[in-house]
């Protein structure tokens, strides 16, 4: 039964709601209020440095901190679910392979360490990027010197995300109404059903792409009319767009606390050994 009810709950509209809620619905959390540049620095510390750390205790400390921040950022369950599946399938497979090719249980510790490492950097990325208002993210990218075409495409991607998903959903519904799902009795039936669902989700991309292409024609013309191309060459407009960003007291506090904790994680193992 898990299979059926789970599939039913994981429909596109749930996914859509969760993704949108994550990026747009959390604007009142502490993390969402940060300046994007603060989060970039924060990500640099918690998303990149852990790769070079091999002390389990320290990784443990970092993990607890990042997990707490994830909680503060109110990350939606769907993304956490994908995160968990991703982590454990990754290291789970590695462990199986190790055993298969003559490894022993002694592989568990290093693998655990690797899992922890990946967990810390993935959560850091989720907190820093998935939870940030797309507009802020795009302005932030511009502020650190990325080309404006790139930052615009980030914010535009979020603009069309709801449209894209709505379109995808209605195409899937067309398949649902007009197609016939295989019986889902027994394990074999459930398996066939799953294959069928996946097949349709892939097939639906064809009409999706065509419908979106048709829509984007208007969008491209509108961009042209609104002077998007011309503004790219104008430095003054770029500065105007950036005016809205400002580093405030809370940014400094958040960064200081994070760095202090980071330093503590670094120091404590040293003192212990």
């Amino acid at each position, binding site marked *: 039964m898990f299979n059926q009810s789970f599939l039913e709950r994981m429909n596109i509209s749930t996914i859509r709601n969760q993704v949108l809620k994550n990026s747009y*619905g959390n604007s009142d959390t502490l993390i969402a209020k940060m300046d994007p540049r603060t989060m970039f620095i924060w990500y640099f510390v918690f998303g990149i440095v852990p790769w070079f750390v091999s002390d389990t205790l320290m990784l443990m400390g970092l993990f607890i901190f990042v997990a707490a921040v994830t909680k503060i950022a109110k990350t939606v369950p769907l993304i956490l679910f994908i995160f968990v599946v991703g982590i454990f399938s990754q290291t789970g497979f590695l462990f199986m392979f190790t055993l298969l090719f003559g490894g022993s249980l002694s592989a568990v510790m290093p693998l655990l360490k690797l899992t922890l490492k990946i967990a810390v950097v993935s959560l850091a990325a989720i907190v820093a990027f998935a939870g940030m208002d797309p507009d802020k993210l795009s302005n932030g990218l511009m502020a650190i010197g990325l080309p404006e075409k790139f930052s615009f495409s980030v914010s535009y991607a979020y*603009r069309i995300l709801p449209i894209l998903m709505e379109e995808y959903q*209605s195409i899937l*519904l067309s398949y649902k109404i007009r*197609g016939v799902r295989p019986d889902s009795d027994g394990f074999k039936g459930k398996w066939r059903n799953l294959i069928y669902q996946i097949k349709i989700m892939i097939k639906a991309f064809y*009409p999706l792409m065509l419908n979106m292409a*048709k829509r984007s024609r208007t969008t491209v013309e509108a961009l*042209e*009319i609104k002077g998007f191309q*011309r503004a790219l060459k104008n430095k003054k407009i770029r500065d105007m767009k950036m005016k809205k960003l400002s580093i405030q007291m809370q940014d400094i506090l958040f960064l200081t606390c994070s760095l202090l904790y980071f330093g503590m994680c670094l120091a404590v193992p040293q003192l212990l050994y």
Partner: protein
Amino acid sequence: MIELRNVSFSYPDTGEKILDNLSVIIPPGSFVAVVGDNGAGKSTFCKLLNGIIPNFLDGDLQGEIRIWDQAISEKTPAELAHTIGYVYQDFENQLIRPRVLDDASYGLLNEGEERYEEITMEILRTLDLAHVSDEYVWQLSGGQKHLLALAGVLVMSPKIIVLDEPIAQLDPTHARKIYDNLAFLNQKLGKTIVVIEHNSEYISRYCDQVLFMKNRQIEWLLPVKEAFQQVLQLIEGGVYPPQITLLGHGLSEKGYDSSGDLPISIDEGIGYINRRFDMSRSRQIPSDLKRNQAKGKSIVEMKEVSLSYKKIDQGAYSALNNLNLTLHAGERIALIGNNGAGKSSMLKMLIGLLKPDSGQIVLDGQNTKKMKMERISDKVGYVYQNPENMFIEDSIEKDIAFSLKARGIKNYKNITEQLLQQFNLMDIRQRDGRLLSGGQMRRASLAIGVSLNPKVLLLDEPTASLDMATRKRITHTLKEVADTVETIVIATHDMQLVAEWANRVIVLHDGQVIGDGSREEIFADEKLLQRAGIVAPEIVQLSQRLNGRICYSIQEFLDYLEKEAVLFV
């Protein structure tokens, strides 16, 4: 002032003329309706004005276009945005920023205007959007999105505003609001307005000039009153003048009128009829208020059904509220009510796409709760509001065959063939549905909807954004389909369709049924119409105001006048 001199446009590869030798002068401050059938070149003409052609669509452009005495050929669309603004038919795709204020101000910001937010807020206040300035675009209603697209155009303070079918998807209340806004811009701010519009009742009420296009050429530009006198010419070009005008035309054809001065509004129509017929002495026939008592067997029963949606912010939105309805065989049901009344939700629930929170739906004797989607769709056909969503294959032939094939029906080829013939799709059977014209798309989607020979057929806005000629053809097709399907339910704003087609009308308002009866009962109840935001077709209003007996089509009223009315001698 807009001035075109011998303007032609053709695509470079085929050399096919998309616009053929256009010459016209549109005076400043006018409110022009561009009319013509789908494919007459209306949108292409409008895209000439804002520089999308030839800057964006490559092709060979000849002739001269001048706006306010400036040749526009060297200007880019962005430069022209200060002169002319364009609101697309698919305006939702014109919104490119996630938030309302950002989107409306985007054009100004790209200009480097320092006060872009101030100016934009001013415009948003004018259009009553200020309270949502911080919202995300996709949280707005359809009407608000249209206003936002308009705001994004207005911030550039253009002298001319072009709108492509601004009210195609709207109920009369919202449609009036849009046009009232345009009238305000036209009269108070002196903007020149150009609309592509199929609805001649709105044209006669709001516009002052009509530009008639046919076969990619401009036939003429005339003041509205004069324009609608050209009844035969317009009909031949796929354009239907107001019903009142057609009535006058019908009378003049029968020899009752030789003045050549046809009425174009209800008030004019009343004077027009009263001058020719003595309505006070005409025989009064009491309206038949009783509904057809002979009901067929019940096909669908909704018992205390409620339905709500979850919103992103986790609040619930109640779409249907404790609904009790029984639909019978032989009924042609029109489901009417304003945008957001719950029409689409009800249709989606009947096909099983949405599950009711409480209550039950019995379909042909079976509780749908226990039915699988496939079994429901064996009995219920559904045609989306947006026909493009119906096409999942790369040709309409495959699309029609899809459900049949999926159900393993052996002679699916024959059935498909039959349907292609019935809906006049033989010539285009290999084409991709998305690339068809509006009318063809509708016909194809209807064919898909009835392919499984359903007992119930649900149609969401089957005549939206079609020109009047195509609309008539679809209405005709719907009458034919009614012979093979037991019950048809149409959710629609098209009151002419309701008047000419339906034998039962259900009025929804805020998720509840506030009216249910025959056309007679519904259209005679003015309070009900007002509450539901519905406006009866002109011919219904006219006949009602003249003698209390309601006629539903022009022909019916003509017959009545001929048979029963006393002519002034």
